[in-house]
Structure formats: structure tokens, C-alpha cells
């Protein structure tokens, strides 16, 4: 999914009425947001955090110092690890690590839903379908739970499955 489309989806789910226009820079198509009252903003997680503040939903960036740092850590993970052009081994390791991390958690910060969950959800989209298919038969791993949880919460798919399936 192109970054601009992802940000448009985010705007919608944040309930922002005024839609922004995004341009893209460079080969990696890094999104750029031109704000009217200041310099432009560059970068997916930077713009996403800006939109969250614009929508007055700061709680999505975490409430405590610890939570805030964790949210930012996973946002960074999204743009550096998940978005990296990786080989199969890297992808396997990434999914394995996430799976292990989420073992005892509902969301990335534990029990609170944050921007990190949203962006990781989008970012994983390109791997998750095949992962689900492969793991469905063997009982649902935590990562799938996370994925479905997030999905249900935001209602992203046209036909969301119930997370307590």
C-alpha cells in the first residue's frame, strides 16, 4: 500500500474531516505533507503522529513515558524492519520475533491500543495473508490474534471477522 493511501486511511479512521494531500519523495516514495502554517513534514511515522495530534487523540501515542517510548520504538520498527526489502529468512525472523513479543500481550504496549498497532497492522498486511493461511490449521498464534484484534477494532476489512472467533 502506498504511504499516501495508508495516511488517507488513517485520517479517515481518526475522524479527520479535512483531507490532506500528500506528495512522495525519492525512490522509496517517502510521503510528504505540506502544512499551511509551517514547513512540510516528511516521513510516514512523523506524519502519522502529527495527524493523531491534529485529531486530538494523543492517547494513541501512549500515556506514560514508558508507553510513549514503546509506541515510538514500534513505529521505528515498522519503517526500518517491516518495510525493509527483506529476503524470506528475514521475514520469517521478523514474524517469529513479533509472535514471541505478543505472546502475553493484546496490543504492542500491552493492553492499550495505539498508533503503533495501526501502522504495524498496515505494514504487516503484505505478509500476513500467507502467514495466516499457513498457520490457521495449527491453532492461532499470538500474532494472528493481534492482527485480528486490531482489525476488528478499526474495522478495516470490508467483512471483519470477529476477534473472539
Amino acid at each position, binding site marked *: 500500500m502506498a504511504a499516501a493511501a495508508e495516511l488517507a486511511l488513517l485520517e479517515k479512521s481518526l475522524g479527520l474531516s479535512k483531507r490532506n494531500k500528500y506528495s512522495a519523495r525519492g525512490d522509496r516514495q517517502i510521503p510528504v505533507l505540506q502544512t499551511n502554517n509551517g514547513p512540510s513534514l516528511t516521513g510516514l511515522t512523523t506524519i502519522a503522529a502529527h495527524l493523531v495530534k491534529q485529531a486530538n487523540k494523543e492517547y494513541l501515542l501512549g500515556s506514560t513515558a514508558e508507553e510513549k517510548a514503546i509506541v515510538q520504538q514500534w513505529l521505528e520498527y515498522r519503517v526500518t524492519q517491516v518495510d525493509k526489502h527483506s529476503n524470506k529468512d528475514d521475514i520469517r525472523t521478523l514474524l517469529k520475533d513479533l509472535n514471541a513479543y505478543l*505472546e502475553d500481550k493484546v496490543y504492542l504496549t500491552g493492553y492499550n491500543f495505539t498508533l503503533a498497532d495501526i501502522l504495524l497492522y498496515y505494514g504487516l498486511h503484505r505478509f500476513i495473508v500467507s502467514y495466516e493461511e499457513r498457520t490457521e490449521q495449527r491453532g492461532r498464534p499470538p500474532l494472528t490474534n493481534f492482527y485480528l484484534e486490531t482489525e476488528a477494532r478499526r474495522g478495516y476489512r470490508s467483512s471483519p471477522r470477529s476477534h473472539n472467533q
Partner: protein
Amino acid sequence: MRLFVSEGAPGNLPVLAAAGRVRGRAELLISTVGPEECMVPFLTRPKVPVLQLDSGNYLFSTSSICRYFFLLSGWEQDDLTNQWLEWEATELQPALSAALYCLVVQGKKGEDVLGPVRRALTHIDHSLSRQNCPFLAGETESLADIVLWGALYPLLQDPAYLPEELGALHSWFQTLSTQEPCQRAAETVLKQQGVLALRPYLQKQPQPSPPDESAVTNEPEEEELATLSEEEIAMAVTAWENGLESLPPLRPRQNPVLPVAGERNVLITSALPYVNNVPHLGNIIGCVLSADVFARYSRLRQWNTLYLCGTDEYGTATETKAMEEGLTPQEICDKYHVIHADIYRWFNISFDIFGRTTTPQQTKITQDIFQRLLTRGFVLRDTVEQLRCEHCARFLADRFVEGVCPFCGYEEARGDQCDKCGKLINAIELKKPQCKVCRSCPVVKSSQHLFLDLPKLEKRLEEWLGKTLPGSDWTPNARFIIRSWLRDGLKPRCITRDLKWGTPVPLEGFEDKVFYVWFDATIGYLSITANYTDQWERWWKNPEQVDLYQFMAKDNVPFHGLVFPCSALGTEDNYTLVSHLIATEYLNYEDGKFSKSRGVGVFGDMAQDTGIPADIWRFYLLYIRPEGQDSAFSWADMLLKNNSELLNNLGNFINRAGMFVSKFFGGYVPEMVLTPDDQRLLAHVTLELRHYHQLLEKVRIRDALRSILTISRHGNQYIQVNEPWKRIKGNEADRQRAGTVTGLAVNIAALLSVMLQPYMPTVSTTIQDQLQLPRPACSILLTNFLCTLPAGHQIGTVSPLFQKLENDQIESLKQRFGGGQAKVSPKPEVVETVTTAGPQQIQVLMDEVTKQGNTVRELKAQKADKNQIAAEVAKLLELKKQLALAEGKPLETSKGKKKK
């Protein structure tokens, strides 16, 4: 909480710096683990540093750990900080890992290391200089600064990997590196081993994949267009459409120029060149040329501007020169004043006054300032021991004594400093001192002198600085120099000398003494103004209405920023003091220093003989202006910049724009129908123009020149994309498009001609003549881009502006002026002789040759012993050989041998 680090992990640096910065280090338990230990249970691959929180959670991202420390101290992050951190993680880190791996693990050097990160470094530099703030996210330090500093430190602490042209990055890096938490982190992590301290960690890491190659081949950073808002575009279009109408009436230049109440009154001085030296390129860029750019800019803004300079003529060096040349000091000054004036005229320096310090006004004002200081108790008396040459019957200034260095035993140490060990020397400490003029041994004599009581004035100075410095445009080096002088405490400074050639000291018992030049040289500005107008006090005793800009090289900062202000404050006479002290660093010549005595470098009078026009010299010197750090003049680079920036970029654009009007539209500017793309270009040009203004208002002359070149690059691209030469042959719509593109381009050329005026005044006038730019538009520069050549305007004859510099031409100039000699000459010892021979040594050698010649002749006349004669002849031949070597150098500076 517990921090796990590993020896030499680069991430330790920012983490420790951040911890130190927020003083959270005390509660932090630090454990060192091996580079291959997996500390985070859910991560397959090892990762350090890692912070284990009391909740059991882990932070394994370096910048998140830093962020956490900042958050704990209550510092939230804004969008700009987040943007830097994201950029650091996604762009900088991949490039930096590759560079560090190359350097530390593979032992590569130079471009192999710098290549991958150059673009990222340039990005930081441009962002810093564009937003004009000392820190990445604004006026104060933020998390972004710590994280980026920590990432970059291992590489940039080696000056070889901090490209000198990145001035803003340079000063940002220095600022952070000198902070205590950063210093401590650097010591802990690098342990004084430099980047090699990272080796134990990095060699255990997989080789990082090279950063995206395609990113590097993109156009350079500065070409990236900023995104513009609709409002900005609309405003640019409105301003453009208002055109010539919006120009204010042209202000006639007054004579004399005097301050006007309610207007901006700008008084500009350039350090007074010492009369008996021909200035070299470094002197020229350091003061007169830099000040000239600002003066011209100031006049383009219609500020009430007075620019003055003059020759500094008193002092011992003049007396000696006079002796050498067999003239009186006054005759020497008269002679050299003209040489200076001619050089500056050739360089097109737009002085309102170019005066001199040997005038009755100088005596009157200096003595008045002295009397007031004396009456107010700011002058002390003391006895000083000095070297006196009985043979020459005078006290010797430091530079006229040579002897054996008391520290290292070097035989040719100067009276103020040893060239070999570099230590400062007090002339009376020299062993076996010699008078440089007559070679006899001077004696120590004591003499009464007057001192300016600086310690007593220190408090007033600090008060004044406290009011002046904040918000002013003093250059960082000037601030630094003044700060360090104040930190060390001021000491009384001697203001008199045992000389004849100077301003007489009006005090009983001091009749045979004069003021020391550094006391009265800065008063020269006042007396030069007084010789220009009897209303000089309206400039110099009017601090409320006058903005004083003083230009100089950094060695002159103490006299202008400290000594003169102290004198002036001590007089209690409401003098105008420097508001903006603009000091440059040094300009080197090729790989070394300019040296008159060693005959290395290009001097003012020789630049004219190279056949290269003054404006090209101006351009190149300003392009490499040592702004923020030392820079070097290089012939090869001058050729490159002339051929790429002037010929291919600027000249090409302006010439094409004009040629299209002539060729396709019969010399009349065509009708323009702006499309949204054109409007965006208008806004981009406006943006760059604003940037140019911002920089010049801050006297960032070198950076502002880049804005001109950027606009012309936009212009070239615009022509290239729209291809008016094809469209002119197309249908009606195509032809209209060709017209619009040509019209807009030629208007950009007109704008460039005005922006160029401070830098290349002759080229600017040539362009304006070619385009027949209306008079007011030539002399006023607004902050908006206006249509100054409306449809129907007839332009003149267009011709190329610049000439290509050829390799062999430059190579022969390089030979002639001594640059890169060491590389050309096969025998190093010959180079040694050549480079140490100065006019004085030549004179000495010539005298010895004559003497030896006489000896030989006498011996022959006496029919002396053959062997004795042979020995003396051998001596003579050796001397002649030495003389030939000394004279045979490409640059000969003694009189009468200037041109070939």
C-alpha cells in the same frame, strides 16, 4: 532500570549522552555484555544497547531509549524532532553503518568511507543553514541533536570525514561535542582511541548492505524543491503581476552620505590594510571584498549606506620599509597608498571613502580620545625592557629581531614567535639576538610607557557586550575570541612605542614617543570619516541611529571587539560601537599559506596580470569565502567553478533566455500566460530570493551566493523541460507556450542580474545592458520576484557573459604563482631554498655576492695565492647559485620585476 551495553557498540554514544543530558544516569544500572549475547528474550538477533525497564519491558531501539530518558525529564517531542528521528533511523543509519564498517572493519579510507554518507551529511548541513537555527529542531537543543550527534560522532570526530564546505554541520557538531554530557559519553565509549574503539563490536556484525545506490545518484539536495502552499503561490503571482509599479522611487546617492533619522543607517568598515604590504587574495576576501558585497547589498535595499576603508600607515614597519627603499616614511605611504587604491579599484570595491591614517584629523581625534582616557584615570605608566639597536639608534619591534629560540634552539626564531616550535617568545628572551636590518647585536634598555587600564574598563565592556551581542550578527568566531579574552581576564595594554613615525603622544616626558598602531589604527575609521565630512560625528557619535558593521579577518577581532570599545567607553563620549562584527577565518593558498616573504600565492596587483577578469576573481573568492572555517584557494577548483557554475549554469541560462527573445520574438519580450507550473516556479524563485535576503541580512555572503546559482539551475531546468526552441515551430498553443517560457525565463535572468550585483558588479551591469532593464529595477532589490520586463519590452544585443578557463592556462598560472610547487619540483631541498627565500634574503645575498666579488677582484689585483683565489671564487659561485635559486622562484615580489 538496567542498561545493557557492549564494548564499542555505536549506540552507546547517544544513549549515554542522553542519560547524561537528563541527569538520569545515577539511577541507571549499566551492565556490559558481549556483542553476541541476546538480551531481549523475544528478539532472535542480538541487539545492544538495550534498556530493561522496571516493568519488565524492553527498549531495544537506540533512539527510543534516548527518547525515554528525555520523556522521563518531561521533555516531549515535536513534529520536527520526530521527523529527524525518523530520518535518522531510515536514511542516516543505513548509510552510516556502511561507512563505519568500511572504515573500522575493512580499513578503507577517504571517499570509500565518505561516499555513502555524504548525501546525508549535506542534508543536515542544508537543513541547519536553511532554517538558520543553531540546532536541528530550533533554537534550543532537542532529542534530535543528541541522537544524531551520537550517531555521527565516531565518524565526524575525525576531521577528515567532516567535509569543510559543510559549515553549518561543522558548527553544530562542534557545539554539541563541547557539551559536558556529550564529551563524557565520547570519552567513555571511544576511550581516546577514536573510531577504532568500535572495532570489537562492529567486526562481529554482518556487513551492512550498501544503502540504496539510486538515492545517491539523485540530483543534489539543494535541487529538491520545497513543497509550496496555495497561498504562497498566490502571493508570488500577485507580486509578479504588480511588476515595476511596486518599486519604490529610486533614492539618489547623497554626497556626503549622512545618517537620516527614522531610516536604516548602515556604516560599514573594512579592516585597514597595512600600507607597506601589497594585499594578497586572503586579505582581499577577508575584509574589503566581503564588506563590499554587504555595502552593495545594503544599497540595493535602499538603506542609507556609508562604506569606508583606508590604509593604515603608521608604525615601525613603514619606517623600515622607508629605510630599505631610501625614501621618507611619508613618501613610502604616498607610494603604497596609491598601489592599494589601484588594486581595490581594479577589484571594483565600492568605497565611499578610501582614506589614510596619516592625517591631522587622525592626530586630533586620537589625542582627544587619549586625553579623555587620561583625565578619567584609565591610563597607567610603567617601565618596559626592550631591545635597542645602538647601530640603527632605535628600539626594535619584535619582528625586527631574530635570534636563537630559548625553547628549541632554532637559529632563526623571530622576536615574537619561533617558526619551528611555534612557541610565543618575548623578544628580550632570545639568545644571540640580532637586528634584522644591520645584523648587529641589540642591547636591553628600559623605557617608560603608557598603558590602557583594560581591567578597570572590563565591567563597562561586559555591560555593553551584554546589550549588543544577543540578537546581533557577530560571527561565532568573533564571539568566541572575545569570550576567551574575557575569561582569561583583561590586562593593561601598552599604547606607546619608541618610534618617530606615528601619532605623537601629547604628554610631558613622552615627546619622543608615538601611539602604538593598534591603539590608533581603529581610530583611523573615525579620522577617515572626518576627512570626508566635517559632520563625521553624526556617524560616529550616534549609536542610536547607526548600525555599525565591521569586517575583518579573525586576528583583528580583539582590537575591534574589545580594545577599541574599551577606549571608546572610557572616553564617555557616546561613540558608535560595533553592532555586528563580521570576522572571516583564513584563506589558504593551494595546500599552504599565502606568504609574501616566501613568495607563495596571488597578490592583489598580480591578479590583474592573469587576464582573468576582476568579476571572476570576485566570484571565486566569494564562493570559497572562509565563512565558518578556513578554506583554500585552488587554481584547479577556480577553473572548475568558472566552467561549471558560471559558464554552464549561470551564463548559459541568462544567455539562452536573452537569445530566445532575440531569435524567436524579434527582441521583444513575448506575452506570458502563466500555467500552474509557471506559477509554482514563480513561488520557488520567490522562496529562494527570500532565502538570499535572509542570508545576506545575516552577512552569510558565501551561502547567499548559492541561492543565485540555485535559481539559475531552476531556470535551466525550466527551459530544458519546456523546450521553447521546439514549441516555437508548433501550433498556436505551442507558440504561446514558447512565449510564456521565454518571457518568464528572461525575467528570471533580470532578477538574477540584480541579485548578482553585490558579487559581480560588472557582469551585473552587462546583463542589465543586454536586457535593457529599466533603471529603478537595476538598483533596487525587493523581497518579491517582480515582472520587470513586461510583454513588449525591447531588449538589447545579447552576447555570452563568461569565458571558459582552459587547463593549460590555469596550469601555467599555477606554476607562475608558486602553487603546488612541491609536487612539480623533483628536488625537495631545492624547494626548501626556494620557498624560504624572501626579498630580504635576496637583498642580503645580493650584497654578499657584491662583497665577495670585490674580495675576489682585490685578491686577483694583488696577484694573491692561486689556491686562496680559487677558494674565494668557489665561495662567490656558491653565493651566486644561492641567489639564483632564491630569485629563480616563479613569484618574484621585489620591485620592478612584477611583469614578464
